[in-house]
């Protein structure tokens, strides 16, 4: 076979192609891979409204890019200078966008700009009083203010705003950080014997971009932060901490898995070449998967890369199955390939078809993962088929006693004399699964997978305590290109939110219309205020004995443009098109607020991500179902109707029972379990096919199954010991499933014996 001319030519052609792939891949890696860890990138492209999706994504990105640091020191000047230095260093290095430079002057400027338009501005309380004809309250309040030692009213204000409606309007404006006040142009507070100044800015890039994370952390580490205390609140620190933990963990688990695999292969074959060639096949697969995804996609999500690379790991099975033929007495490279070619061909084909279906789903993450794994798997397979017979110099091996024991152990259950034990084993599995079914739970809540750094969480709590900052994690996205209409929709929502505020469901809300009401509302307010003046001023004059000749403001109305509010960080970019509820206690009640208001959509990013995971889980299960179907059709074509199904059953049983066995361990069923099942089925089918290709219990084949199962357990099963919940669930699923698949695989062989 290897002497055939076409095979030699194909091997050379493959070498040329791989050199190209490696050349291109290396060049791209040196230039910097376009990696991304932003979960929004995984959003399905089948959303009905791309504009809405784009707007929401934009705003979520903006919220995610917030950068807040409190700089504290007992000496005010030290704290201030440190805050200035830190902010300027980060800005100079392009890590932060430019920010409003002087909060004190901006706040005063804003009040000065607003004041002439006061006849159109009313606080929520005063507006409600006037709408409910409770002018008396406002008149009493105005008189009371004149004799009130704590009143804001002075001689100037008395003539311009005798009912203190404007100052009341300002006081009722939402304040996201109520404990801070402008001081020396910065937001400041004094607490815990320290002066604290706040740096509040936007990151210049996505905090989920691995490249930006690295750049940022490089700059951050070089800044001398002594002697001040820093408290941090930004997604970039959380993302970086998570990435750092994941890298440490993966390097520990990965190194351990790799070491065990290397030791196992060397121990079994007592030679280095099988290990070297296996690594070559895997590396070829990884590089080709990467290159294909680089050619197909603009950016590559790290999750997709991880998922795809993991699946390429299935290819290690082909290599090991090939080399295990060395335990056959009549072994030559050509013979080895001939012995396994059918098994690994059908194994590859079933996996290939399954993942090809995955690529059809409109989920970018699955498409990328599928592209990487399909390309990688095919490459590894071709490397085995085209190169191994030429590079393999391994002589025949005598099986060690331990291999013979392993073979006996694997076949023990399937010996004809052990029918009762098989029944007992099956009953035990069914009973355990039934027990698991009682605890079976589906849970895609994103918070379950979040493992935030406790240290950063503590800093966040401290910042919230110092500043009074409340959580703003949800928002209403408002699709309206007309500014007046946009403001009116915000007011409409605000009117509904007032009730929720009264009931304690939210603390407050933030929107552009709270600062600059719509012209329509300002006209209404003006009428209400004019009526109040007509009724109230004579009464005040009578009680106080003062003669009040009031001065009115401008006749026109305040707009976002003439107010200068758009220059504030609160309403930059996409934020003006949203309304932010503050401290939402019950998100479910919020969804009803937008009902019936055209163009208003409630967005809860955390809930959306949970929904996204749920949808991905459904797709993964659909993919699994398609994989099962295509695999079955292929097995039927190869082995016939009856034996096709019995070849399918070992992997299918392992795949179906694993979630219930996991439930016994209190592990809920979620996306990461579902995606592990896809991998599990692909591996399990391979084992069954390898068995089905044999006519009797064959040592090389059984050794191959043992070996591939153990390497899979070392690669994926060890992930069960990860501290990251998603990775742990993935690892546990594979660990249980692979063990079951291995135990059940000889079932297929038994049926082959019955095959006509």
């Amino acid at each position, binding site marked *: 076979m290897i002497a055939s001319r076409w095979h030699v030519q194909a091997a050379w052609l493959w070498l040329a192609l791989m050199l190209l792939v490696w050349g291109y891949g290396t060049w791209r890696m040196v230039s910097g891979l376009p990696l991304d860890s932003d979960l929004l990138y995984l959003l399905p492209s089948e959303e009905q409204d791309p504009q809405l999706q784009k707007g929401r994504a934009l705003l979520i990105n903006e919220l995610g890019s917030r950068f807040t640091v409190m700089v504290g020191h007992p000496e005010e000047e030290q704290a201030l200078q440190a805050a200035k230095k830190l902010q300027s260093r980060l800005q100079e290095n392009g890590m932060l966008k430019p920010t409003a430079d002087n909060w*004190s002057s901006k706040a*005063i400027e804003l009040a000065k700009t607003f004041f002439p338009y006061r006849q159109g501005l009313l606080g929520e309380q005063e507006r409600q009083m006037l709408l409910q004809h409770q002018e008396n*309250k*406002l008149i*009493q*309040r105005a*008189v*009371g*203010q*004149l*004799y*009130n*030692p*704590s*009143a*804001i009213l*002075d*001689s*100037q204000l*008395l*003539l311009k705003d005798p009912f203190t409606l404007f100052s009341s309007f300002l*006081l*009722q404006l939402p*304040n996201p950080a*109520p*404990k*801070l*006040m*402008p*001081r*020396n142009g910065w937001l*400041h*507070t*004094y*607490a815990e014997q320290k002066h604290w100044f706040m740096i509040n800015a936007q990151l210049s890039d996505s905090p989920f971009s691995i490249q930006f994370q690295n750049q940022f952390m490089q700059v951050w580490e070089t800044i001398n932060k002594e002697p001040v205390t820093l408290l941090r609140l930004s997604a970039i620190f959380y993302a970086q901490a998570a990435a750092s933990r994941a890298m440490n963990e993966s390097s520990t688990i990965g190194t351990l898995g790799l070491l065990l695999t290397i030791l196992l292969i060397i121990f079994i074959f007592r030679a280095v070449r099988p290990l070297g060639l296996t690594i070559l096949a895997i590396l070829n697969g990884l590089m080709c998967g990467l290159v294909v995804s680089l050619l197909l996609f603009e950016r590559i999500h790290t999750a997709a890369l991880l998922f795809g690379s993991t699946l390429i790991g299935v290819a290690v099975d082909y290599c090991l199955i090939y080399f295990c033929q060395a335990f056959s007495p009549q072994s030559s490279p050509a013979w080895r390939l001939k012995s396994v070619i059918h098994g690994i061909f059908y194994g590859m084909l079933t996996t290939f078809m399954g993942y090809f279906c995955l690529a059809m789903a409109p989920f970018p993450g699955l498409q990328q993962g599928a592209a990487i794994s399909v390309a990688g798997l095919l490459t590894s397979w071709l490397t085995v088929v085209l190169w191994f017979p030429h590079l393999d110099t391994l002589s025949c091996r005598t099986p060690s006693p331990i291999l013979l024991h392993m073979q006996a152990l694997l076949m023990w259950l399937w010996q004809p004399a052990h029918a009762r034990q098989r029944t007992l084993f099956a009953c035990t599995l069914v009973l355990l699964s039934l027990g698991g079914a009682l605890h079976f739970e589906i849970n895609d809540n994103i918070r379950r997978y979040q493992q935030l750094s406790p240290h950063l969480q503590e800093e966040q709590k401290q910042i919230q305590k110092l500043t*009074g900052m409340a959580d703003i994690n949800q928002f209403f996205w408002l699709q309206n290109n007309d500014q007046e209409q946009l403001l009116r929709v915000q007011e409409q929502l605000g009117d509904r939110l007032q009730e929720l505020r009264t009931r304690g469901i939210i603390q407050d809300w933030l929107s552009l219309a709270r600062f600059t009401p719509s012209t329509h509302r300002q006209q209404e307010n003006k009428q209400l205020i004019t009526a109040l003046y007509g009724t109230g001023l004579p009464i005040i004059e009578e*009680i*106080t*004995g*003062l003669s009040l000749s009031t001065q009115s403001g401008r006749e026109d109305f305040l707009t976002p443009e003439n107010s200068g509010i758009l220059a504030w960080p609160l309403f930059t970019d996409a934020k003006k098109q949203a309304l932010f509820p503050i401290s939402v206690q019950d998100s479910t009640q919020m969804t009803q607020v937008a009902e019936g208001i055209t163009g208003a959509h409630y967005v809860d990013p955390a809930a959306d991500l949970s929904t996204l995971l749920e949808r991905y889980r459904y797709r993964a299960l659909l993919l699994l179902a398609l994989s099962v179907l295509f695999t079955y059709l292929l097995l039927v074509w190869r082995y016939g109707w009856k034996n096709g199904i019995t070849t399918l059953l070992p992997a299918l049983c392992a795949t179906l029972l694993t979630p219930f066995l996991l439930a016994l361990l209190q592990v809920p069923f979620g996306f990461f379990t579902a995606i592990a099942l896809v991998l599990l089925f692909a591996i399990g089918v391979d084992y069954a096919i390898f068995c089905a290709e044999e006519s009797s219990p064959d040592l090389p084949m059984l050794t191959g199954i043992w070996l591939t199962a153990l390497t899979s357990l070392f690669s994926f099963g060890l992930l069960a010991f990860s501290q990251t919940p998603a990775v742990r669930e993935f690892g546990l699923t594979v660990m249980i499933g692979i063990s079951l698949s291995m135990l059940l695989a000889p079932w297929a062989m038994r049926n082959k014996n019955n095959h006509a």
Partner: protein
Amino acid sequence: MMRLCFLILLTFNLIFPDCSLAAPMIKEGESLRCRFTMNRHLQGFNKPLHSEGSLLLIPGKGLLWKTEQPFSSIVAISSSGINHYANNDKILSIASQQIPFLHTLRQLFEQALTGNEEGLSQFFHIHQENQRIELRKRPDIGISWPLQKIIVQREGQNWVESVEIVKENGDRDIIHFLEQRLTQNAPTAEEIALLAGADP
């Protein structure tokens, strides 16, 4: 707003005769009751606004400023904010969250209560001459503050006779304190409710 802050400050002066630097004289469980007259001189108006009433100060709880003449109303100031009552109705309610400055000043006064001189001197230059204490706003405090100065006139060792608050625009409040007495009588339920910001 500034008046409010200085009112609190000066009320403390009623019982801290050596400005803020002495240990508190109100013992635990005691409260201060007195009567007051206030003349508010507003620039551009010929006659001052005159009012009379009583006040109650409970350390740690807050201050009730009860105006009786010419218009009956009560201002309750506590850590939760300011509530203004008139005609058996709450006519104004401002939570302390809405007034960050109040929060800062409260921290300042807490420091003053513990004898921390730095607390007041961060905001004022303090000048004492016999029975007269003048607190003049520091120009470098980094806060926009329409107040110019506060003049406290003491009576004997333990009590404040009057307080004059002068604003930058020339408005002045002159408050005289009369019939001052420390009492161990617990405040009434109504007074406690008002300080808690309860609706009448």
